[in-house]
């Protein structure tokens, strides 16, 4: 993975390179050392693919959630056998890794019907790998009271299935504990993310994304200390300001900080991100309440914002515009993995709507794996120039 050298240009020379090296290691391969340690301790790692899958349930008791990604994927010939060229490359990459045994450390999978690519991932994973525990969450395409009730039924079913299969009891108390841990973790990340609002931010988008990704693929418990250390270190960090523009990155699945690094190397500092593995709106804590299943269901359904939610285009647009203002951004970069139906159309509508409001937008189509770096840099540079920066 190119992230070893991915210290952003802005901060490269101030002696802080070592700060993120732990996080670089964590996200270099699926089975990172913390996950390995957890497995050795008898924990149960469960793979999941989408922000609509509540990781709090998957971290209750001795469960450990793992957000499935395919770092360093080069080609996907095994997955190509099963999936046509019109299926998104994230789907293909993780199926390929799965068939090649790269996720064999996982004891189970929880997927969701979030999009048709993911639905077919479920079918093909079951057909090829047939994991001992595999569950697909039936996710409504709307956010409403009845949808939350539906989601609660799904969550209860998930809890029952987990209990039966792994022979464990997941009590309400266990779930409340998991929620608290989750809240602590996101609040810590959120506090770091807040620093990006500064006129002279102390952390680049690339660096922040490394933290986000690590938090999604390594057990929470191991990361509190390193994340707190980073937070403290950042307050003493000095900055060299040589970026030309501040941008917000918007799009779907993006789990490789190297992509953000290319954007930043071209002069556009990514100050906020509305991507599946990003800070908007993933870092909101779960509110207090009594029934943990209800809290989890309502939070997951209302706080995650994907184009698949039919009624919420205006809300998504508003969230982006609000971030544009709070983070004092100059422009917005929208990235969508090729063949993604939901983001493909959303990107077009967002672009139009944002431009109507006078906000500069660059729309990019990409592969899951980084390709065409040269072209990408040219486009970013031209975008910065077009903003008069």
């Amino acid at each position, binding site marked *: 993975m190119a992230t070893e050298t991915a210290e952003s240009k802005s901060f490269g020379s101030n002696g802080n390179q070592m700060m993120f090296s732990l996080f670089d290691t964590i996200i270099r391969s699926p089975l990172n050392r913390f996950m390995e340690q957890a497995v050795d301790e008898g924990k149960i790692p469960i793979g999941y693919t989408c922000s609509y899958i509540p990781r709090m349930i998957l971290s209750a008791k001795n469960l450990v959630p793992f957000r499935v990604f395919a770092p360093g994927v*080069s080609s996907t*010939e095994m997955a*190509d*056998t099963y999936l046509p060229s019109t299926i998104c490359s994230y789907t293909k990459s993780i199926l390929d890794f799965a068939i090649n045994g790269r996720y064999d450390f996982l004891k189970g999978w929880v997927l969701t019907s979030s999009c048709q690519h993911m639905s077919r991932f479920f079918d093909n994973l079951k057909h090829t790998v047939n994991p001992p525990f595999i569950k697909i969450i039936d996710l409504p395409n709307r956010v409403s009271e009845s949808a939350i009730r539906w989601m609660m039924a799904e969550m209860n079913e998930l809890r029952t299935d987990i209990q039966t299969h792994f022979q464990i009891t997941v009590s309400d108390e266990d779930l409340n504990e998991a929620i608290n841990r989750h809240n602590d973790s996101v609040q810590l990340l959120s506090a770091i993310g807040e620093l990006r609002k500064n006129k002279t931010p102390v952390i680049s988008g690339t660096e922040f994304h490394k933290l986000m990704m690590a938090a999604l693929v390594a057990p929470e418990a191991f990361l509190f200390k390193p994340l707190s250390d980073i937070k403290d270190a950042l307050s003493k960090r000095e900055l060299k300001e040589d970026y030309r523009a501040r941008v917000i990155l918007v799009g779907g699945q993006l789990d490789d900080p190297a992509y953000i690094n290319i954007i930043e190397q071209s002069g556009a500092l990514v100050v906020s991100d509305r991507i599946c593995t990003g800070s908007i709106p993933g870092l909101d804590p779960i509110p207090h309440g009594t029934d943990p299943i209800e809290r989890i269901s309502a939070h997951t359904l209302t706080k995650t914002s994907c184009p698949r939610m039919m009624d919420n285009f205006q809300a998504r647009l508003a969230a982006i515009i609000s971030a544009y203002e709070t983070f004092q951004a100059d422009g917005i970069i929208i990235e969508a993995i090729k063949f993604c139906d939901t983001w493909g159309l959303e990107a077009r509508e967002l672009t139009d709507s944002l431009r109507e409001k006078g906000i500069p937008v660059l729309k990019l189509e990409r*592969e899951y794996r980084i*390709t*065409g770096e*040269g072209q990408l840099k040219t486009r970013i540079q031209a975008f910065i120039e077009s903003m008069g920066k």
Partner: protein
Amino acid sequence: MSKNFYAGCDVGSTTGKAVIMNDKKILAMAIVESEIDPELTARNALLKAMAQVRELNRLEDMTYLVGTGYGRTEVPFAHKNVSEISCHALGAYFIDKKIRTIVDIGGQDIKGISLHDNGTVKEFVMNDKCAAGTGKFFEAMGRTFKVDLTEFSKLAGKAKKSISVTSQCSVFAESEVISLIAKKNPPENIALGIHESVAKRCYTLLKRVGLNQRITITGGCAKNKTLVKTLKQILKMDIAELSVDPQIIGALGAAVFAKQNGK
């Protein structure tokens, strides 16, 4: 004494191939560059092959002629036309009765074919809406390096390691390769990466029809030694080399059909 002559003519997108047989053996074979008019391609290939057979002077002297390949319907002097799928299967099986899986890499498509024990086609997939991994793809890639196909294969053969080229689409692959060259990557390593990407595409097609020993590769690109070697590595299986030019297998299959039909 038998004076029967059977011919198969494979009118492909980049070359035309002809094979002439009598009741006992293969008498002649020829490969010519394709013309715009498939009929002319077929005529050229047949005439070139006929020139090697003393008794044959006119196309009409042919006892039975079978056309195959992309331009097969445009060969008016053929008695019958048969799809290249059947012909490649039959041609390969005619040479080696143990062949069960074939990958044919032609100028504009790749096919994976699996055979029953008796040589009939069992399953078949074709990659026909995209140039990725075809002869045309190799040509385009070779052009990027300013070398011809043979040189391109040799170049890749020299590589110590490969740099992966992942774009499935030949248009994108070309720009990916250009940026890799611009980054001063050793050309031979990129060339090997390109060969690997084609081999992986073949692998996918072969998997779809079911991989059974013995496997062989036909079509013009079968002559590309680096490709065959790379495919062997990816398949982790041996690839049987046929005793005749792999490029004429389709035409040979057609000639065998002609022999069966003309008797």
